[in-house]
């Protein structure tokens, strides 16, 4: 199978490259419930791709399919131009796909620093024995890992809480720590499930800025789920709209906004 590999230019002058992730005819069922119904869309290198839709539309399920937490009954996931065999979540993570969760999954008992450090586990090559034997190599690796972690911590402006146990942090900061942990892994593709849910306006602005900066500075491809339409329109290059497990719209924010199906879905179903 061949893919259409064309790149395009954004309004703010960033170049969006080839398709990195291609979802083909994905169907996902839970017993009798069809959470995703024959959906196809792709994500291109360097873009910020939003997935929107009313509650229960299947957005999180879609992200879970991409990150290996759910295995679709039908359809294929193509990654970097190759079809991907069904993978376990940890295997997906090792391929350079990092994620955050709608309801935050942090290591509550660990400090912020330790949490972010776990994002580096994939980059620690030294096993138990070699760590004991080749002390020098392990140390160099440790230094590299710490540098990346400190950079991410600076970047997301969480220096002041680096030693704080995560369990004690307020919601908004937890979301930020979760993003930090994902970034520490140096992902090619970053999946964010409602990174701004439950935040106040100021926190949302900060988070939006971080997401744009991550995309800009690290060149990270980002797929995000978000309910706040203002945020979505500001951040994203292209938007997929889901409703009741179906795809009802796909395009630039402007295209999607003027799509009649999308308008109907949003008028017909209440969302927060």
């Amino acid at each position, binding site marked *: 199978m061949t893919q259409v590999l064309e790149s395009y230019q954004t309004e703010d002058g960033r170049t969006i490259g080839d398709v990195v992730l291609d979802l083909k005819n994905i169907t996902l069922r839970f017993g009798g419930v069809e959470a995703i119904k024959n959906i196809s869309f792709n994500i291109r290198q360097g873009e910020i791709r939003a997935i929107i839709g009313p509650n229960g539309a299947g957005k999180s399920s879609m992200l879970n399919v991409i990150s290996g*937490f759910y295995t679709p009954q039908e359809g294929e996931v193509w990654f970097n131009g190759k079809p991907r065999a069904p993978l376990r979540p940890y295997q997906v993570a090792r391929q350079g796909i990092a*994620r*955050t*969760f709608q309801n935050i999954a942090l*290591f509550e008992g660990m400090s912020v620093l330790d949490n972010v450090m*776990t994002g580096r586990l994939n980059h620690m090559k030294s096993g138990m024995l070699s*760590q004991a034997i080749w002390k020098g190599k392990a140390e160099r690796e440790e230094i590299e890992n710490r540098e990346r972690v400190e950079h991410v911590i600076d970047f997301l402006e969480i220096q002041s809480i680096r030693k704080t146990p995560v369990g004690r942090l307020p919601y908004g900061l937890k979301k930020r720590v979760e993003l930090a942990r*994902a970034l520490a892994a140096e992902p090619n593709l970053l999946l964010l499930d409602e990174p701004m849910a439950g935040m106040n306006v100021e926190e949302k602005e900060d988070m939006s800025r971080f997401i744009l900066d991550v995309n800009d500075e690290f060149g990270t491809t980002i797929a995000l789920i978000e309910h706040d339409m203002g945020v979505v329109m500001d951040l994203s290059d292209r938007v997929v709209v889901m409703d009741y497990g179906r795809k009802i719209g796909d395009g630039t924010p402007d295209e999607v906004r003027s799509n009649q199906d999308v308008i109907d879905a949003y008028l017909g179903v209440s969302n927060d």
Partner: protein
Amino acid sequence: MSADFLYGVEVVINGLMSGVMYALVALGFVLIFKASGIFNFAQGVMALFSALTLVGIMEGQVPFAHLINAIFGTHIHNFGWEVPALLAIFLTVLVMVAFAWAVQKFLFRHLVGQEPIILFMATIGLAYFLEGIGDLMWGSEIRTLALGLPQGGARFIEDATAGLGGDDFYGFFIDKLDIVASIVAIILVASLVIFSQYTKHGRAMRAVADDHQAALSVGISLNFVWVLVWSLAGIVALVAGVMWGAKSGVQFSLSLIALKALPVLMLGGFTSIPGAIVGGLIIGVGEKLFEYLIGPMVGGATENWFAYVLALLFLVFRPQGLFGEKIIERV
């Protein structure tokens, strides 16, 4: 110093040493429980099984000899060699790692996401299965473990302390085997702590203990970590089995040391490594002191129940254990 006081001190020292052993057994439970939420009823049988395996390998016994002989009509029992202790220990560790792998692959892998009570029941089944396999592999006779560990009272301590308390005091009597066991246990615990704090897999282990979903998202294989903790628990069981077995022979009663760990866990909490250590020491010292001070008044034999009563009292006043955080249900 009065002799009575000094004998009290001796009781405390000996209590500390048996406490170290209790802590060790409890540690095996904590490792698995933290990482997987499984309360491993088979921990005691693992100690028995690993000690049996060690003896069997050292003596060059043919595993499953009875079975083989019954099927093929042969009369083999021994390979006719003896394996040096260190090599035998290494081989036993390999056996315990293989056991950990098999447990994960054939049992718990299929039970992911089940209720804790189901997992617990599975470990009860596992305990009896392992006991049977132990019999089948190595026979059910009482075995002596000839590791050449020092035994008997440590003369040098007795001599050095004899002068402390006048004519009625003959010096501290401390079993050499207890000293060795304590040192080995301390080294083991220290290595475990270093491993979990500073190595990649140790970090992965802590991550899994904290949150499975988050651990998966940073690329940790739960299966790998579970095999790892069962292996570590197997090694801990081996050490406990060897020390206990060296004292009183390798026999079925060895698997009952798990019962000694229960009050320790109630005291220290099921998820806390420091809790297991401190809990073990408190119970070790507590039961020996109680027997020394109160025992004569109530007819002795208090060591059988004291630990449990202490643990129950603790449960009532601090259900989360020594170091556990109080859990307040979110509503």
